[in-house]
């Protein structure tokens, strides 16, 4: 195994400092504890925990998974044991294993986010950042997700930002076409950076039973199938020069990671790949190190946004 402490991998994303730009995506890596049985998850730049809500959430009715061509549809429904579980039961182990945690939090209103933030105050020094998952439908606003409403994005971000002293990341959905506006409002709210893309809305139907293959009818599409879409979204946001970007969506190899950085990502998120290549992070970090050496880079961030796309 290579020396992952290679300083040329260290990146700053807004005011977030990471020893390397490889991040585990929310919902695909637990809090890094299970995977630590496979390899030392402390090597990872940061682990975004699954999204925790105030109260435990039971999640959606199964089936929750459906494989598609080069993609995965899921409708987990954000099943989680609630924020207190993370704070009391998981964080001690996360600390012990020296995992670098980014806590993903999930609410249906700014009030809920405020409450979540206040619960985090006492542990914020243990966290690298918090990530706001705004994909939960807001009951007051007719079931539209908070993340699609510019005002809500700014409001939630600024509430969390003011309550906490650690950087705030806003996770963006690719299902709205006001990406740049949303990112701007995240910035106004004080976000350090944005992460994108979350899953694309998708569906599959069992032609024998006529039933949707997901209990929840629709779900989120992830994996290599969505990579070209993710790259285009990241590239367009990068050009708008709003905030630094953590890029994700179908990254499976170090080559993919480079592609995302060239498109404009300052760091990369690994999601679905964790289910397929359990030690993807190791291979990708090693690949980045080799790439740095071969290309004589001072730092991996030298390539961020460097796609040659001006005619």
């Amino acid at each position, binding site marked *: 195994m290579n020396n992952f402490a290679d300083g040329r991998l260290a990146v700053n994303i807004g005011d977030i400092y990471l020893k390397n730009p490889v991040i585990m995506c929310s919902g695909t890596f*637990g809090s890094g504890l299970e995977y630590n*049985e496979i390899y030392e998850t402390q090597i990872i730049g940061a682990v975004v925990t699954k999204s925790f809500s105030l109260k435990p959430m039971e999640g959606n009715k199964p089936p*929750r998974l459906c494989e598609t061509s080069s993609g995965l549809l899921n409708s987990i429904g954000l099943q989680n044991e609630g924020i207190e579980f993370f704070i009391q039961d998981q964080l001690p182990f996360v600390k012990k294993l020296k995992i670098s945690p980014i806590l993903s939090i999930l609410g249906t209103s700014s009030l809920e986010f405020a409450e979540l933030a206040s619960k985090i105050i006492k542990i914020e020094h243990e966290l690298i950042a918090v990530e706001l998952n705004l994909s939960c439908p807001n009951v007051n606003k007719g079931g539209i997700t908070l993340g699609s409403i510019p005002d809500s994005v700014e409001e939630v971000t600024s509430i969390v930002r003011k309550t906490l002293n650690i950087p705030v990341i806003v996770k963006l959905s690719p299902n709205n076409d006001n990406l740049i506006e949303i990112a701007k409002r995240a910035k106004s709210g004080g976000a350090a950076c944005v992460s994108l893309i979350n899953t694309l809305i998708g569906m599959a139907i069992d032609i024998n039973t006529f039933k949707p293959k997901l209990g929840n009818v629709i779900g989120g599409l992830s994996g290599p199938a969505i990579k070209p879409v993710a790259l285009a979204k990241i590239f367009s946001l990068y050009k708008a020069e709003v905030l630094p970007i953590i890029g994700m969506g179908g990254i499976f190899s170090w080559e993919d990671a480079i592609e995302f950085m060239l498109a404009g990502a300052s760091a990369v998120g690994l999601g679905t790949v964790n*289910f397929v290549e359990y*030690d993807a992070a190791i291979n990708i970090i090693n690949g980045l190190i080799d790439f740095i050496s071969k290309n004589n880079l001072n730092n991996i961030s030298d390539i961020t946004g460097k796609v040659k796309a001006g005619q």
Partner: protein
Amino acid sequence: MKALKGEIISNDKISENIYKMTVFSPYMVKHCIPGQFVNIKCSESTVYDPLLRRPFSIYDVEEGFKVFSILYLIKGKGTKYLKSLEPGDVIDFLGPLGNGIKVDDKSDKKYLLIGGGMGVAPLFYLAKSLILKKNNVFLAAGFKDNKFIFFEKAIQLLKINYQFFSEDGSHGAKGIVTDFLNNHIDEYRDYTIYSCGPSEMLKSLKEIFLRNNIKNKAYALFEEIMACGIGVCKGCVIKTIDKDNKYIYKTVCKDGPLFELKEVVFE
């Protein structure tokens, strides 16, 4: 649980659409227990269709040869890929996974194993392990047709009592295994029960046990489509009910695949 690579020792067709793959893996042999499974990569690197790994129960373990084997039915692209592999090829898998069945070191108990179709796969290793510890094992299994005659031959070597059924009468008695159980339930009141098979079969079993007020432990091995295989994604859940009558979604890959039948809610 470990991410492993293992050399394929053999990969043979043993019945129509059914294959047996034997893999060299000292780690698995040392650590796995009946009812556990492995999550196997079923495509070449950089080929992402099929995308997900495929879970397969441990069918047999041969300690002397440091090999374990799986029995697989050709269903779609993942199993077609497995079929294309040859001895000497290396497969990439994670295992052993799931809670599995701990076989007591000293024991002299009675076990009833009930299998349906491909659900018999994990029961072979279980029966073998139970017999090794001198338990009393009866195996009842039901099939559509006579595709599982190879399985009867394997079971015979274990020298346990068994009864096979087939829907078309081409193998064993004509009939279905749940009917058999329904009629003979009183003979098995003091047996510990393990079952594995299609969801409808497990549902019937649960009903039979309830109806007959069976007090002894009855377990089943469940299947769900999986992504991570290690309890992280919460994708492979089934609905269960706890002692306070509260519904909980539990993961088949980590909380299971073994569940007490009475805790599972069939919908």
